[in-house]
C-alpha cells in the first residue's frame, strides 16, 4: 500500500526528478565555481537563461494541452526583428511600451494562426507548426534582412543590473545574504510567472487545459470547449514567445532574423526534462523552467571542466541523454526487480 502511495506521489509531482537533477548539477557547478551564488555571477547566468525559461513555460502549456509548438523559435526571431525595428536608441519611453505591446499582439496573432490551424482545421500539430515556422521565419527575414539594430542603453541596463532591495535590511542573518539584497531582475520575472501560474492553476480554464490534453474526447463530451482551449494554449505560447523575444533582445541589445531558431528544440527538451509527458494532460511549467536551468548549468559545467572544444557537443548531448533516460532507467530497473521477484518463486 505504501509503495503504491509513493508511486502516486511521484506521478502527481512529476517535477521532483527535475528538482533533484537541478540540485545535483548546481552542486557540481558550485564545486568548480565557488562564487556561483554571488549576485553578479548568478545574474549573469540567469539572465542568459531567461528567454528560454519563458519560452519553455509557453511550450509546456501547449504540450499539457495536448499539442506541441515547433514555431516558438521562429516567433522569437520575428518578435526580435520587430523589436529592434520599432525601438531605436532615440525611442521615447512611451513609444517603447507601445512597441512592446504591439510585439506581444503580434506574438499572440502568430499563436492564433497556429491555434486555428490545429484546433479548428484539425491539422496535426507537429507538421502544422513546422509549416507556420517558415512563415514566421520568412517574415522575420523580410523585416530584418540582416543582423543589426540597437536598443536604448537604459533598456539593456535595466535587464543587466541587479535590483537593490533593503526590505530585509533590519532582519538579522537574512540581511547578510547577498542575493536577497541584490536581486537579479530575471529572478523577479520568474517569480512573477510562477506566482501567476500558481494562482491560475486552480481556475477552471487551466483545469480544462489539463483535461483537454489528457483525454480530448472525454473532455468534449463533458462539455469542455476543447477547440477553444487548444486555440488558447497556442495564443498563450505566442505571447510567451513575444516575451521571450523581449528578454532576448534586452539581453543581446540587438536583433537577428534567426535569433530564436535554435531555441525551439531546446524548449521541448526542457519541458520533458521537467517531467511533463509529451502526450499531454500532465506536468507543469515549473518543471519546464527548471529544465531550462538544468540545460544551461550543464553547459556551464562543461566549460568549467575544461572539456576540449571538439568534445563539448558530445559531452553536452550525452549528459542530456542520460538526464532524459534517468526516470526511465529507474522505472526499468524497478520493473525488472518486481518481475524477478514474481518469477523468482518459480525458479526456487
Amino acid at each position, binding site marked *: *500500500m505504501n509503495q503504491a502511495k509513493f508511486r*502516486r506521489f511521484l*506521478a*502527481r509531482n512529476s517535477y521532483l526528478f527535475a528538482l533533484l537533477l537541478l540540485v545535483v548539477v548546481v552542486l557540481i557547478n558550485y564545486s568548480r565555481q565557488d562564487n556561483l551564488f554571488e549576485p553578479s555571477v548568478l545574474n549573469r547566468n540567469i539572465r542568459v537563461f531567461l528567454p528560454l525559461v519563458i519560452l519553455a513555460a509557453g511550450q509546456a502549456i501547449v504540450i499539457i494541452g495536448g499539442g506541441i509548438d515547433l514555431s516558438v523559435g521562429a516567433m522569437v526571431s520575428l518578435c526580435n526583428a520587430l523589436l529592434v525595428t520599432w525601438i531605436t536608441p532615440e525611442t521615447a519611453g512611451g513609444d517603447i511600451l507601445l512597441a512592446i505591446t504591439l510585439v506581444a499582439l503580434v506574438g499572440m496573432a502568430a499563436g492564433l494562426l497556429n491555434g486555428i490551424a490545429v484546433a479548428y482545421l484539425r491539422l496535426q500539430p507537429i507538421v502544422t507548426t513546422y509549416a507556420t515556422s517558415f512563415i514566421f521565419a520568412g517574415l522575420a527575414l523580410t523585416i530584418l534582412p540582416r543582423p543589426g539594430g540597437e536598443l536604448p542603453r537604459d533598456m539593456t541596463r535595466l535587464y543587466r543590473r541587479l535590483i537593490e532591495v533593503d526590505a530585509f535590511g533590519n532582519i538579522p542573518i537574512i540581511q547578510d545574504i547577498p542575493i536577497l539584497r541584490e536581486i537579479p531582475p530575471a529572478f523577479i520575472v520568474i517569480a512573477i510567472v510562477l506566482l501567476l501560474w500558481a*494562482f491560475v492553476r*486552480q*481556475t*477552471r480554464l487551466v*483545469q*480544462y487545459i*489539463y*483535461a483537454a490534453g*489528457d*483525454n480530448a*474526447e*472525454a*473532455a*468534449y*463530451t*463533458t*462539455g*469542455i*470547449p476543447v477547440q477553444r482551449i487548444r486555440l488558447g494554449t497556442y495564443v498563450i505560447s505566442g505571447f510567451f514567445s513575444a516575451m521571450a523575444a523581449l528578454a532576448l533582445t534586452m539581453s543581446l541589445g540587438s536583433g537577428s532574423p534567426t535569433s530564436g531558431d535554435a531555441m525551439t528544440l531546446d524548449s521541448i527538451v526542457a519541458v520533458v526534462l521537467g517531467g511533463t509527458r509529451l502526450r499531454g*494532460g*500532465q506536468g507543469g511549467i515549473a518543471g519546464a523552467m527548471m529544465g531550462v536551468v538544468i540545460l544551461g548549468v550543464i553547459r556551464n559545467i562543461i566549460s568549467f571542466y575544461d572539456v576540449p572544444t571538439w568534445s563539448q557537443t558530445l559531452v553536452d548531448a550525452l549528459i542530456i541523454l542520460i538526464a532524459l533516460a534517468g526516470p526511465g532507467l529507474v522505472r526499468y530497473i524497478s520493473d525488472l526487480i518486481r*518481475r524477478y*521477484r*514474481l*518469477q*523468482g*518463486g*518459480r*525458479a*526456487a
Partner: protein
Amino acid sequence: MVTLSAQHLVKRYGGVVALADGNLEVQSGQVVALLGANGSGKSTLSKIVTGVVAPNEGQLLLDGQATSFASPLVARRAGITAVYQELSLVPEMTISENIWLSHEPMRLGRINRKAMQQRTQALLDLFQGTIPASLIPTTPVYNLHPDERQIVEILKAISQDPRLVIFDEATASLDSSQVTRLFELINRWKGEGMAIVFVSHRMDEIFRVADTATVLRNGSHVGTVDIAETSERQLVQMMIEGATAMEREAREPVAASAPIRLHVSDLTTEQLRGVSFELRDGELLGIGGLQGQGQSDLLLAIFGAIPFQGRLALGGKEVHFSHPQQAMKQDVAFVPGDRGNEGLLLIRSILDNLMLPSLREYGVPLRMQRARAQAGDVSDDLNVIMSSLDAPVNSLSGGNAQKVVIGKWLLRDPKLLLLNDPTKGVDVGAKGEFYSLLSNLRQQGTAILFYSSDDEELLGLCDRVLVMHDGRISAELAGENVTRENLVSASMGAAHHEAKPPGASQHEEPTA
C-alpha cells in the same frame, strides 16, 4: 417536470443511414428502456438527445418546444446528460476532479477543492458497501477498476442535477450488488421527478427497472410498449424481426478419459492468489463470478501476456510463457473481450486481421493467395457478412467483427481456446451462432476456457463452472450443481467488498 420528445430523427454518415426514424418519448418520473440489436441506432439516438451528434432531419421537443443542441454543453444546460458506456473520464485527474469537471464549485474565481471533495464524498456514499472504502475523492481515475470507473461516470452525470439522464449500457461492467444499488437509486431519482432513459442488452434488468420500452430495429422505431404488459419473448421478437429466441442446447458430459489439456496449479499474479484446476480436451469450462475477480488475469497469464508465478502444464508438458507468441506456438488461442482495443486493427482489412496471428506461416514474401483462400474459408464457415475480405474491419457490425476475432484464431487450429467475455455487446442473433460454434469446437476436441459476465451463458453451455472471488476459485460447480442459485451464491457468498481491499490478504506468498 420535463418532457422530451424526439420525432423522426435521421442521421446519415455519408451514404450509411445510422438512424432512419428515431422516436423517443420520456417524461418526469418515468424510466424508458431503449432496446435494439447492435447497429439498430440506439447509440446514435441517445447521442443526438445529448448533443454529441447532430441529426440530419427530424425534431427534438423539450417541454413542447422545438430545440436543437449544438454541443453536449448546451444539452447539459437544458438539464440533459448521459452516462456513457465508452467512458468519458480523464485518467490523470482524480475522482472529484472528474465528477465536477466543467461545473466545479468555485470560490473567488478559483476552484473550491474542499467543497468539491465534500460533495464527491457524499456522492460516493450513495454506492457505499458496493465499492471499496479505499475509494476516496482524491484517488486518480487511472487507478480504478472498470466497475469503479462506471460508478464515477454515473456520479458525474448525477452531480449535474439533471432533469433527464440517459444510461447507455451503464450496467455492462457493474456487478450484481452494484446493479441492485443503482436500481434503488434510479427508483429514488424517479420519485424525485427525474426522467430516465435506460439502454441495455440485459433483458432481466429492463424488467426490473423500466416502465416502458421503446424498440429500434435497423435504425427505425418499431414500437413502444408497457413493460408490465409485455414479455421478454415479445420484446426479443420486436428486436430481431421474425427470429426466435435462442434455444439452449442439451449438455453432453465430457468423457473422464479425455486427456488433460491444461493443468494449472497455484497460479499467482498481482490479482490472483493461487488458482489450480484442470481442463480436458473437448471440455467447455466456464469461469464465473463478479466482475474483476481475477478472471481476465487468469486467462492473460495462461496466454503469457502478464507475468505470473506457479505451474502450468499443457498436454502434460510443463510450460511457462513470457509472451503470447510462445503460447501460440503451443496452439493456445485467446479471444479478448474488448474487440476494438484488444482484438482488432480497426482500420485494416478483414484479411489482414485474420492473417495477423499466422503471419509467420505464410513465409517471405507472404503467400497472399494462400492467405486469402484460407481467410475466405474461415469467414465463410463463420458466416461473416461482409462486402469483401479487403473491406476494413470497422465496416462490420459488432457481431461480425467478433467473428473476425474468433476467425483469426480458428485459422491456427487451437487446441486450447481462451475466451474472455466474448459475447459482451454482441446481439442476440450472433450470440446464437457463437454458441453453436463452441459446441462444434468441443466435438472436435478443442479445450475451451470460457469466462463470461453473463450467467445465463455459463449455465446454458458449460459442463463445469469455476466461480472466482478475490483472486481465488471460491467454488467449482459441476453436473447438476451448475444452477443459477449455486452460481449466484458462490459469486456473492464471500463477497464483503469493502472489508477486504485487494492486496490485504493474510495468505500472501513469501516473496523470494
